[in-house]
């Protein structure tokens, strides 16, 4: 028989989630009989147990790794880590040898900007359609032909040009242009070059969003990641 919910259950619930009430405790039994608290207790305990399992796995693996620091596998691992980090830490060759190109690039950009203003501004370039925002390109590979449209239900639909050899795509959305913070939205294993962001997720996004797309080939092997930023339409 289920018991009625009383205010007293709430501090007990906190103690139960914290693991301070064991399975035989009367207070825990009362929570398990309460129609309001029982589903909450079951979910919270499942969550706590899942976190405990994940934590235990992490501690066990790290203890094993710590004990293997002098092994042959560790020496091979160290060699791989050294080579990979050295490659990642090195500035790209173009940055070292072509610094003299920087002033020329700035001058060319300014000239192009001046040309664009004189040919387009006065001619009254039509504004883009209101539901589609035009992306600005990021520093990684360029995500081409990105379009962002908002559906009637507030969801966002992102679509981009298919990548050669790509069999699937992983998508991450970020608040920062460098795409280095925690992703705000993740959708993996998309078979087509498009991604729907549900309206409840859209509400968590800032006005300006950076999208990072990781294409995979059929093997599956990682292809070059692509990035672009857009203003929410």
């Amino acid at each position, binding site marked *: 028989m289920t018991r009625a919910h009383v205010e007293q259950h709430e501090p007990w619930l906190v103690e139960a989630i914290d693991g301070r009430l064991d399975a035989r405790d009367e207070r825990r039994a009362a929570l398990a009989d309460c129609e309001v608290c029982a589903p909450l207790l079951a*979910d919270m305990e499942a969550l*706590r147990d899942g976190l405990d399992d994940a934590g235990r796995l992490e*501690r066990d693996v790290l203890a094993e790794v710590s004990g293997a620091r002098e092994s042959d596998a560790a020496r091979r691992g160290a060699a791989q880590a050294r080579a990979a*980090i050295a490659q990642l830490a090195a500035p790209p060759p173009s940055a070292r040898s072509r610094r003299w190109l920087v002033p020329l690039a700035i001058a060319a950009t300014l000239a192009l900007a001046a040309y664009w203003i004189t040919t387009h501004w006065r001619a009254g370039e039509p504004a883009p359609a209101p539901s589609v925002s035009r992306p600005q390109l990021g520093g990684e590979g360029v995500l081409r032909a990105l379009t962002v449209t908002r559906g009637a239900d507030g969801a966002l639909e992102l679509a981009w040009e298919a990548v050669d050899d790509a069999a699937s795509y992983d998508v991450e959305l970020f608040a920062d242009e460098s795409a280095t913070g925690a992703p705000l939205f993740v959708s993996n294993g998309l078979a087509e070059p498009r991604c729907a962001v549900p309206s409840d997720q859209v509400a968590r996004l800032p006005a300006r969003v950076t999208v990072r797309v990781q294409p995979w080939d059929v093997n599956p*092997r990682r292809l070059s990641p692509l990035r672009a930023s857009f203003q929410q339409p």
Partner: protein
Amino acid sequence: MNAWESDLELVKRVLAGERAAIDEFSLRMQCVPLILASLNARRGRPFSAADTTDIAQDVFVLLWRKLDVYEGMSTLESWVFRFCHYEFLNALRRRQRARQSESIESGAEWTANAPRPTGAVAYARLHEILERLSPREASVIRAKHFDGLTFDEIGARLGIPPNTAKTHYYRGIERMRPLLLSMREEIE
């Protein structure tokens, strides 16, 4: 200075491009292939040594890209473990998906005995859900369940009273619940 503070110091020196720090960091990152080998063994070795080397390479790229978000809330190895686990599970899911589509293309029927990636999905989603909490809530939950600390110890590490740590913990767990429910629906 405790281990996390000295690790944060090391990462700051790496980001500043200090040669000696990069060498020390490279040495610490030997844990990446070892963690992946351990995860692979625990899963019944679904990947060959060459596959885990490829996954390690992906982890190094990811770590380097995310290095500036390391806040010193756990040891470097503990922080790195999450990336290894994430990439390992991603690789596992991709392989399972590829095998599923191969069996569909070859006309094989999906049987109840075929392995479903629920465990992998659950672990990956648990980490994704933690990422959606506020940094403070996620730090407290990780410290409690992953580092096995008491609320007194968590408070000391984060420089907050133990009761504030408890509040962050319960709030975080409560916020994880609806996300957990949607995760269950996805799995079912």
